[in-house]
């Protein structure tokens, strides 16, 4: 668990605090996304957790320990750290990059070597092909995979990610978001991620903290953030299309009913959301579309009427229930 207690940061030579008495609690194994306009203090908040920035006041508790009293170098070896610029060491091979923290911790050679292979496989890179390469020969997406493998190498319970998908193109970004989200959930990591992309926040976060002027304006589950914005700023920030965005949180397959698909309309993939279902209906003029099951065969139909029911339930603030 990560807990921030009235954490503040005022940089020298500035009158206003960049982070102003922030309280935040992230339960074990969940992902918290910090989001807000630039200068809102989200990155400063993140960097105070591994003390790349020293808090001016308050306490930061990671796994029960007050980190403001810990040795910062030792502390950082227990916290995974991924940044937008990735920052791979260009003079070292991919394998040596991944081995950074295990070697700092003095792991035996054989254990480090097997860990390199394990981590590269985990992030979808073939160890035999990639371990010996230099970072300069990789694509942006591959580099960020190595960045995440490096951060996970010593199995830290906690991961800090500062705009981890900012440096890759949209297609790769969507795939990495899905893959990394799954890996972090499976490994049970407690994650704090910074982004400026509200769609990414909704997709990746179990809870999202919207920041403004160094304070957290609202800290809630994505569906509540979209359904019940705390004030006009949050409503504006999540966007006028928040009704549509909320549909991205609901898997289409969960709302499928038995039926025959309208001819000429392609079936949705198994992991499609209600938003994608609605989009396909609008594009094809049909008022029902088929959804594929996990086995690839049609699992059933999602109807326009059902989507309206879900949207209405969401608008009332209640959790949508699957059919």
């Amino acid at each position, binding site marked *: 668990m990560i807990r921030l207690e009235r954490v503040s940061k005022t940089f020298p030579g500035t009158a206003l605090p960049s982070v102003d008495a922030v309280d935040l609690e992230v339960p074990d194994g969940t992902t918290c996304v910090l989001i807000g306009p630039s200068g809102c203090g989200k990155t400063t908040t993140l960097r105070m957790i591994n003390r790349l920035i020293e808090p001016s006041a308050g306490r930061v508790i990671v796994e029960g320990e007050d980190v403001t009293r810990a040795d910062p170098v030792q502390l950082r070896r227990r916290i995974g750290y991924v940044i937008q610029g990735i920052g791979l*060491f260009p003079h070292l091979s991919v394998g040596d990059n991944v081995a950074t923290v295990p070697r700092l911790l003095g792991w035996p050679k054989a254990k480090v070597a097997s860990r390199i292979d394990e981590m590269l496989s985990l992030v979808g890179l073939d160890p035999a092909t990639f371990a010996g390469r230099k970072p300069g020969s990789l694509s942006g997406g591959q580099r960020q995979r190595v960045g995440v493998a490096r951060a996970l190498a010593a199995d830290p319970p906690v991961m800090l990610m500062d705009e981890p998908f900012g440096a890759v193109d949209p297609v790769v970004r969507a795939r990495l978001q899905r893959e990394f989200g799954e890996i972090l959930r499976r490994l049970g990591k407690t994650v704090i991620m910074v982004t400026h992309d509200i769609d990414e926040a909704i997709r990746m976060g179990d809870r999202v903290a919207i920041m403004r002027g160094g304070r957290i304006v609202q800290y809630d589950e994505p569906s509540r953030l979209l359904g019940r914005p705390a004030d006009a700023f949050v409503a504006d920030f999540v966007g006028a299309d928040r009704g549509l965005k909320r549909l991205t949180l609901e898997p289409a397959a969960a709302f499928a009913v038995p039926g025959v698909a309208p001819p000429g309309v392609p079936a949705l993939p198994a992991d499609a959301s209600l938003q994608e279902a609605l989009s396909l209906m609008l594009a094809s003029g049909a008022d029902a579309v088929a959804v594929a099951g996990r086995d690839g065969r049609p699992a059933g139909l999602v109807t326009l009427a059902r989507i309206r029911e879900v949207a209405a339930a969401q608008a009332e603030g209640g959790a949508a229930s699957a059919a």
Partner: protein
Amino acid sequence: MSGLLHWVATHGEIIGRTVREHLVLSGVALAVALALALPMGVALVRHPRAAAIAVGGVNTLRTIPSLALLVIMLPVLGTGFLPSVVALTLYGLPAILLNTLVGLREVDADVIDAARGQGLSERQITTDITIPLALPVILAGIRTSAVQIVSAATLAVFIGGGGLGELISSGLGLLDIAQLVTGALLVALLAVATELVFGAIQFGLARRYGIAS
């Protein structure tokens, strides 16, 4: 041409001695310049204000002609080996210091941030990350400095430092063209050889670290 060859053939001893003197003088000056400039560069890169003052200082030093720098040593340190080494060290220092500073500063800030964030200590960041990454630029500075020192060491003869300048100055005095030209050719040869050797070291290290120089 035959006069030249005859002079070389009959003056092996003095050629050997002046070449040796020249190399020792240059080598010691380069070693001292390295021992001073590298730690200074590493220390200064963390202190921008002090670095700015140091850069201003060595830039002034750079504008002083080598001969002037040598002659200035006369009233302070007298003549001989020591004042020559001091002058040549001062002459070679700026290139190494400036390149060390530039090389270390140019290391990608994200790389340093990531290194610190993974839990490398400040010392480990310097030895394992920034110095290896700055090495091609630092080596380019050392190469420039070495060639400057080898060339300028020719003038050490004016304050009694010996070296190949001796052949040139006595060749001039005696109007002994063979001796004069031998001295000049040897200095040129030494400077080119220095350039090639340090260039090879630079290339080899850049390849080993897999980064362009």
